[in-house]
Structure formats: structure tokens, C-alpha cells
């Protein structure tokens, strides 16, 4: 009974930490999230895209994998420094690196279910408030430290105590270990438990505690230990298929990892498999999509990734390259709005401060978007179909909420304002009264790449068309990696963004909760995970229905209610469902294939991320 319950929820629940992220080339910046249920194996890319979830699976004919080769992967950003999970704003590029040097406790299965990977078995207590995991025996970190219960507990505790990742793990009350087993205690009954620590979650990746103890930023260290800590937080010591070789920060530089001959799934490992196939893998930072694309065409990169649909479209039908498209685990592209104003009774209650200010520094006081009328006016003025057609090369669809088609909570009509200039102008009149501004002045923060800037130009022009002299928009480009910082600190009015991918709405609660909408930790006065900083009691109620009610019908209704609340309150300006593209040389095989030691297939692409252990190149040579 208990086991069945777990399984049912395992499919539904998944959890992700901050996947602070940045689309180096897309017009929005991503906060990555959870896998979503893949309804079926899809073969026809085109067809799927019509349905809103193209496959990312490498469907080329099976050939026998061979060893050897050096893969050069052009990645979009250098956002990850340092890589230690508890301190990293880890975007897709960073996740790819984590996947190469370490493995996660769990991994997302092909059906969106959660499959144990480093964990062998998992058993909950009767009240689901405590979960005990058995870690596979015999696995060693690259430095020889054994992966035991204590090591896992140490990793989890660094994340719990970190100001960055702590808030997302706040439901964990304690982590204890004994031999190869780890027990996690929760303050609430948790239907899913630690399975949330999967490969989509940076804290699910395990690193050597011996090494972590040498890192000065480790929150578990005492002041004296910190003073003598001399380890380098970028020189990752994990359990992964590749071992750290070198890392140099900055555009054009790279992270290099070489084959780990003692990989636990290798010939010397506990499973006796022969992973990985590649001798070496190099992730080269190339923030400019044109630079990345040119590098692929010029043969400097063997594979690149991008969420720039315009660039993806150029590779369609190009037989010199293999193009995989994926929007399975649906992120949504949007213009995020900062609604911080007034006080927050929810967080205030937790902190014992009934007057807890949402915007203590007054950074958002001149933002007209704190008024519903202004948000509505902006939403009415945006022709999202046009954005999809002209900026997404017609291969992406306009979005109307955080839940893409096929996911729970998706609605044909969420009540989100439709493109309607007359309505926009009506709302704008109200907005001018509400905000007391004429013209209404708003700042838009975007990534610095030309494509994002051009998209922003289009958006501004749409607003000009609708409002003319009534609005004044100032666009500020900033480096992708810094966008997350501004979002966390609430230092923006409107921001180009990409977020809310996930299997189940329940895992998205902390993005939307009032508890995380204002300073979540007394020692961190600025940071909030609810980047939009909206306090919505109805949203709290609806999210509780999604999180804690086991009845699928209630959950679905609650999720739809969440979607409608977004539509009604216009907390974000939705643009399109995000599409990821992996473009590679045809020599690179099995890019997205990955099976567990038990033979379970895993999800090929999770919001652009995929495993690298089973990639191989024809004739053991990626460059040909």
C-alpha cells in the first residue's frame, strides 16, 4: 500500500532547487525546473511540436558504441562559478558540467517518473515524515572517499545551511546517516520525499565531503576551519564518469574533464559496465549564439545547445548536422514583473515581524507594474502570436500561463489578457491614474545578446503602438549570469526570463509562494525566490490544494485555479513555450540516451539538459 502510494506520487512529484539559469542566446533567461510527464515516445519532431512537446530523443539507428574520442561542447554561459551545489546559481551549462563529473541520487525516468541512481532502495516511515535511503555500496569519489550515508548527509546539509539553496530545502528538519543508509526527516508529511533530489536538482549531485571541507564558503565549516580552507570550489571532486581536469572562467574558456577509469559503472566499477565511452569532454563557454553556431559550422564544436528558436530553425533540414528539439519539460518564456510593495504578513508571521516590508530599499517604488491595471495594459498590448512567429521562427507557440499544453493545470483559456489594443488603452488610462505617472515609465532588463535586444525592441514597439506617448520604456541589457542576481535581489521592473518547467505544479510552489516573496532568511535581506514578489492569498490556497491533496481531481482543479490566478492577476507577461535545440555533428551518437544499471530508460532531455555518460563518437573520434 505504502509502496504503491509512493510510486503514484513519484510520478507526480518532483522537486527542483534553484536552477538559476540563463539562456545565453535565448530572448529570455531561464530558471530551470522539473521534468514533466512524457506521455508517449514520439518519433515525429514536427508533429510533436504542434502538440507542444517535441521530443529530444536521439532516434538515430542503433550502432554499437565504441570507446574513445574527445567531445567539444559549446555551452551558452559561464554562469556556474563556483560549481559547488550549495553556492551555485546553476544554469543549464553548469548542469551539464555537474552531470559529467558527478551523478545524482535519483534520475528522471523516461516516463517522468523518478528512478534511483546512486540510491539503491528508498523506504518511507508510516507517516511519510521520514524517509530512509540505502546508498549503493562500493562507489568512491574521485579522491577515493567512499560514498556512504555520511557523505550524502554532508552534501545535503551543506545545501540546507546555505543561504542560496536553504530556502528550497526548508521542509527538511533533519538528516541522519548510518553506514550506507541516510534518513531524512521532514516537518510535513512528504509524499515524494528525497526522490526530489534527482538530476534536475543541483543538490542531488554528490561531491566528496573530504573535498567540500576544504572549501572556504562551505556553510558547515567553523570560522577557524574557514580560515585555513584552501580548496578550489571549481575543481569538482564527484563520483561521475569524468574527472575534473581544468577549468578557466570566461567566454572562450572551458571546463575539461577526462574519463574516469574507476567510474562505478565502468569496467572497474561495481556494475561492470563500460561507461563512459568518451576519453574527454570539454565544455567551452561561447555566450554568443552566432559564435557558437559558427564554431559548430567551422568544426571547433562538436555539439552546441540553444534555446534560440530562430537559430534552431536554420538547422532544420540541414543534413550536415543532427538537430534534436525538445520542449518536453516545458519552461515558459516571459517578461517577469516585479510586484514588490507593502508588507508581507505570511513571511512576517514566520519571522515574527508583522510589518515585514516587501521592498525595504524602495527599489520598486516607482515601478508601475505593481498596479494590476498597468500589468493588464501591458499584457493586452503584447501580440504573443506575433512574437512566436517572428521571434520564434514560427516553431514555438504563444504561452498563456505557466503550464504548457500536456501538463497538469494547462487551460485553453486562462483568462490571461488577450492581445487587444483597445483594452490595453483603456487599462492604460487606469494605470496612469493608479501609478500617478504620465508617461508611465518602466525599465526592462534583458540579456545583452543582439537577439534579446531585438526582441525587446519589438516589445517596446508593440507598447508604442498601443500607448504612444503614454509610456516610456528604458531597456537595459546586462550579462545573463547577472540577471539572476538582480532577480533574487528584486532590483528590476520587468525582466526577460524563462522559468517554470516542471512535471508537477507542486514543485513550483516556492516560486509563487508568499512565504518566499520577501526576504526569506534574516541574514539575507535582499533575496527572494518568488522573484515577482507577489503576495496572493488565493495562490497560497490553490497551491496547498496542489501540494498536499492526494486526490488527482482536486489537484488538477487546484492547478487550474493557479493558472487562472496568473491569468487574472497578470503576475507575468507570458510570451512563448520555450524550445531547446541540441545541434551536433553526425559523428556524435547517443547524445540523449541514458539507462540506469538496471536497464531503465531515462528521460532524454530535461529542459535542454541531458546525460553525457553514454555519448560516443563514430570510430571513437568526434572530429572525423
Amino acid at each position: 500500500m505504502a509502496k504503491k502510494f509512493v510510486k503514484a506520487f513519484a510520478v507526480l512529484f518532483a522537486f527542483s532547487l534553484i536552477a538559476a539559469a540563463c539562456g545565453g542566446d535565448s530572448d529570455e533567461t531561464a530558471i530551470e525546473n522539473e521534468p514533466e510527464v512524457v506521455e508517449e515516445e514520439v518519433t515525429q519532431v514536427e508533429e510533436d511540436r504542434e502538440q507542444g512537446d517535441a521530443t529530444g530523443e536521439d532516434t538515430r539507428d542503433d550502432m554499437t558504441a565504441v570507446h574513445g574520442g574527445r567531445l567539444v561542447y559549446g555551452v551558452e554561459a559561464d554562469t556556474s562559478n563556483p560549481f559547488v551545489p550549495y553556492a551555485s546559481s546553476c544554469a543549464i551549462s553548469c548542469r551539464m558540467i555537474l552531470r559529467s563529473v558527478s551523478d545524482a541520487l535519483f534520475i528522471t525516468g523516461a516516463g517522468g517518473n523518478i528512478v534511483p541512481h546512486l540510491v539503491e532502495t528508498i523506504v518511507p516511515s508510516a507517516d511519510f515524515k521520514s524517509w530512509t535511503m540505502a546508498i549503493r555500496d562500493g562507489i568512491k569519489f574521485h579522491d577515493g572517499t567512499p560514498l556512504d550515508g555520511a557523505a550524502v548527509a554532508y552534501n545535503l546539509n551543506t545545501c540546507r545551511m546555505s543561504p542560496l539553496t536553504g530556502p528550497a530545502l526548508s521542509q527538511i528538519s533533519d538528516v541522519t546517516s548510518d553506514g550506507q543508509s541516510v534518513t531524512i526527516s521532514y516537518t510535513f508529511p512528504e509524499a515524494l520525499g528525497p526522490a526530489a533530489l534527482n538530476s534536475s536538482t543541483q543538490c542531488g549531485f554528490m561531491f566528496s565531503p573530504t573535498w567540500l571541507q576544504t572549501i572556504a564558503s562551505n556553510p558547515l565549516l567553523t570560522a577557524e576551519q574557514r580560515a585555513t580552507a584552501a580548496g578550489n570550489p571549481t575543481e569538482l571532486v564527484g563520483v561521475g564518469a569524468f574527472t575534473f581536469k581544468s577549468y578557466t572562467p570566461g567566454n572562450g574558456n572551458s571546463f575539461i574533464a577526462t574519463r574516469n577509469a574507476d567510474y562505478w559503472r565502468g569496467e572497474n566499477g561495481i556494475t561492470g559496465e563500460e561507461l563512459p565511452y568518451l576519453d574527454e569532454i570539454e565544455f567551452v563557454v561561447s555566450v554568443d549564439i552566432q559564435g557558437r553556431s559558427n564554431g559548430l559550422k567551422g568544426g571547433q564544436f562538436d555539439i552546441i545547445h540553444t534555446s534560440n528558436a530562430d537559430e534552431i530553425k536554420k538547422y532544420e533540414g540541414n543534413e550536415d548536422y543532427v538537430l534534436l528539439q525538445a520542449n518536453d519539460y516545458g519552461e515558459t518564456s516571459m517578461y517577469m514583473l516585479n510586484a514588490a510593495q507593502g508588507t508581507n504578513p505570511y513571511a512576517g508571521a514566520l519571522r515574527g515581524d508583522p510589518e515585514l516590508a516587501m521592498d525595504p530599499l524602495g527599489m520598486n517604488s516607482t515601478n508601475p507594474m505593481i498596479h494590476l491595471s498597468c500589468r493588464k495594459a501591458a499584457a493586452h498590448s503584447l501580440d504573443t502570436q506575433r512574437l512566436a512567429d517572428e521571434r520564434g521562427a514560427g516553431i514555438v507557440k504563444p504561452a498563456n500561463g505557466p503550464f504548457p499544453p500536456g501538463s497538469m493545470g494547462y487551460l485553453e483559456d486562462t483568462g490571461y489578457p488577450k492581445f487587444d489594443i483597445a483594452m490595453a488603452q483603456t487599462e492604460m488610462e487606469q494605470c496612469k491614474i493608479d501609478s500617478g505617472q504620465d508617461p508611465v515609465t518602466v525599465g526592462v532588463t534583458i540579456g545583452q545578446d543582439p537577439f534579446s535586444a531585438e526582441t525587446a525592441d519589438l516589445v517596446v514597439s508593440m507598447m508604442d503602438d498601443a500607448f504612444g506617448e503614454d509610456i516610456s520604456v528604458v531597456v537595459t541589457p546586462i550579462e545573463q549570469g547577472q540577471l539572476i542576481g538582480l532577480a533574487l535581489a528584486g532590483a528590476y521592473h520587468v525582466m526577460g526570463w524563462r522559468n517554470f518547467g516542471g512535471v508537477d505544479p507542486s514543485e513550483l510552489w516556492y516560486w509563487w509562494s508568499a512565504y518566499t516573496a520577501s526576504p526569506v532568511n534574516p541574514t539575507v535581506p535582499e533575496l527572494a525566490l518568488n522573484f515577482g514578489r507577489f503576495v496572493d492569498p488565493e495562490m497560497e490556497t490553490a497551491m496547498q490544494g496542489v501540494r498536499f491533496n492526494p486526490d488527482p481531481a482536486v489537484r488538477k482543479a487546484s492547478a487550474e485555479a493557479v493558472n487562472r490566478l496568473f491569468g487574472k492577476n497578470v503576475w507575468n507577461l507570458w510570451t512563448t513555450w520555450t524550445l531547446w535545440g541540441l545541434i551536433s555533428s553526425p559523428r556524435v551518437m547517443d547524445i540523449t540516451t541514458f539507462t540506469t544499471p538496471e536497464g531503465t530508460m531515462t528521460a532524454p532531455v530535461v529542459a535542454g539538459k541531458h546525460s553525457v555518460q553514454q555519448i560516443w563518437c563514430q570510430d571513437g573520434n568526434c572530429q572525423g
Partner: protein
Amino acid sequence: MKFLKRNIGRIVLTGLVLVILFAWFARPPFSWTFGLLILVGAFGALVTDANYAARRIFSLIPVLLIVSFVVFSLMSSLPGDPALTILGAGATAESIAQLNQELGFDQPFFNRYGNWMGDVIVGDLGTSRILREDVADGISRSITPTLQLMAYSLILAVLIAVPAGMYSGYKNGTRQDRIISYTMLGFLAIPNFVLALVLVLFLAVGGVTIFGVDIGFRWLPAARYVPIGAGWSDHLKHMLLPSLSLAMSQAAVFMRLLRSDMIGTLRLPFIDLARSKGLKTGRILFRHALRPSSFTLITVMGLSVGSLIGGALITEYVFTLPGVGSYIFTGIFKRDFVAVQGAVLVISTLFIVVLTFSDLLYLALDPRLKHQSEAA
């Protein structure tokens, strides 16, 4: 005592070299600047006299002070809460207070300047909170590709400009002269960022297809940096397009200068004498006319390093090169003040050193000036 007096220049120079050597070993990024400084000093001592070279190098000190002051003033005019801007995400109240203290924002301006200069002199440019890296390390790492890029561009520019300028000056007024001059005028008008795009499009990524015909090639790499250690040919292949895109407008400037100076020189009587000796035209042009025509060119080459550095910023961005330009570029968009400040300081120092070098080179090439400097 007499020995001391007579050789004061030599002694000072030796002392300077020792100090610099110390700084070199103390911190890496200055190895470049100071290394060059040593070269310049040695070169100066060789071609002129030690006294003059030492004087010239000493005169750099006030200039360097001005630069550091300008850079520091910029840093001090930071808008908003600098600590917050620097720390960004992940800042704690504690760390903000600590940083404010560390940066000494509570102290008066000149105290801060003094402290900062103290750090800079021993090679400590501070730590970038955003890159989470020692700025000096970052710059010393990224300056290698930039210096290579600049060196290759300069070499390419000279290789293009000298023959073209000499030929054009020699053929002054003819159709060949006009063709070369107008072509170069054209290159002067093509911004390097456009040239970079065009070169990549047509020589690296296969060009465009017009009416079903592919125009373009895939001869050269379009991105990435390969260090010399990974093989010279590979290294040069990767550097060719970036260098070329930087070199062309410089070549145009150089060529035009050389051409007009060449025309002037070829009118001088010693060219007639050289001809009357029965020398071949090539020998006359290269052995007799080139050197006296190259003085302006050398000065301008020194100055052109300034625009090359600016150009490197763009070129490195387009070609995904991890140079100092990329470092500054990222720093700007990440609002990483410490990193940009350090990089600007190092680049300016480098620039000044190069200018001094070109001055001394000028001196070496024109014995008349050397004579004057000795007399003075």
C-alpha cells in the same frame, strides 16, 4: 664617488630592473607589463645610452600615477551602493558590511587611493566577487591571447602596409598607385566588426547561398583560442581571421603614412646618389628609402596599439577568444567593477610602455636623434 656619478643612469636602471624582477615574481599579471618594461629599458640602454633610457623610464612614473588616479577616480564615482553591486546575488548583510570595510568606503578619498596604490604596486588588483577570482590572475591569464592577437595584427598590418605603401609611393601618381591608395582608403572605412563578420561568413562557415550557388568557404576556424602549446599551425589558423579583421584598417593607416613619407624621401638627393651607384630599385627602396620614411609610421604604430586594444574587445567577442577584451566585456555586462578597473589599469600601463618603446625605437632608427640625445 666619481664612478657613481658617471654611471648614475646605469645604476638606477639596474636597481629598477631588480625591483621589477621582484614584482614579476610577486605577481603574475605584471610580468607582462614589467617584463616589457625591462625589455624597453634594456633596449633603450642598448640603442641610446643607459642614462637616457633611465630618464625615459623614470618619466613614466608620473604618467602611470596619473593613469592610476584616473582609474581609481572612476571606481570611486560608482553609482548606488557599491558593495551591493559588487556582491550581487548571495550577499549577506555581514558580507556587505565586511566588503564596505574592506573597500574602505568609510575612509577619505586619498587614504583609499593610497591603500589601493599600495596593493597595486605589489600586484594585488583585488578580487572579483562576481567571477570569484583574483583579478590579477584573471588578467594574466587572459592577456596572453590578447597580446598574441595584437602582435599578429600588427605584423599582418605591417606586412600588408609596407610593400603596398612603398610600391604606391614609388609609383606615385600612376594608375597602380591610385588603385592601391583607393583600396586602402576603402579598408580604412570598413569597421573591424563588419570585417570580422564578413570574414567569418565567407571564410569560415561556408558563406551564403544565392540562387542556389554557395558563395564562401570553410577554410578557417570561426571560433575559439588554441594556445601555442597545442601546436603552432593550429594556433595560427585560429588566430588568422581575428588578426586579419583587426589588421586591415591599421594596414590602411600605415600604408597611407608610409606612402606619403616615401614620396617625400624619394625626392631627396641621397636617393639620386643611390641610383647613380647602380643599385637595384628594390635595394634602394628597402635599404635607403624605407628607414628614413618609417619614423612617423613607428610613432603611429605605437599609438595604434590603443585602437588595437579597443578592436580586440570586439574581435574577441565575435571569435569567442578568451582575451582581456572578453574579460572587460564580461566585466562590463556583469557590472564587475573590480575586474574592469584592474584590466583598464593593466592595459593602460601596457599601452604607455608600448608608446615608450616606440619612442625608443624611433631613436634607434634615426641616428641623428640619438646624437642629439647624447649631446643633450
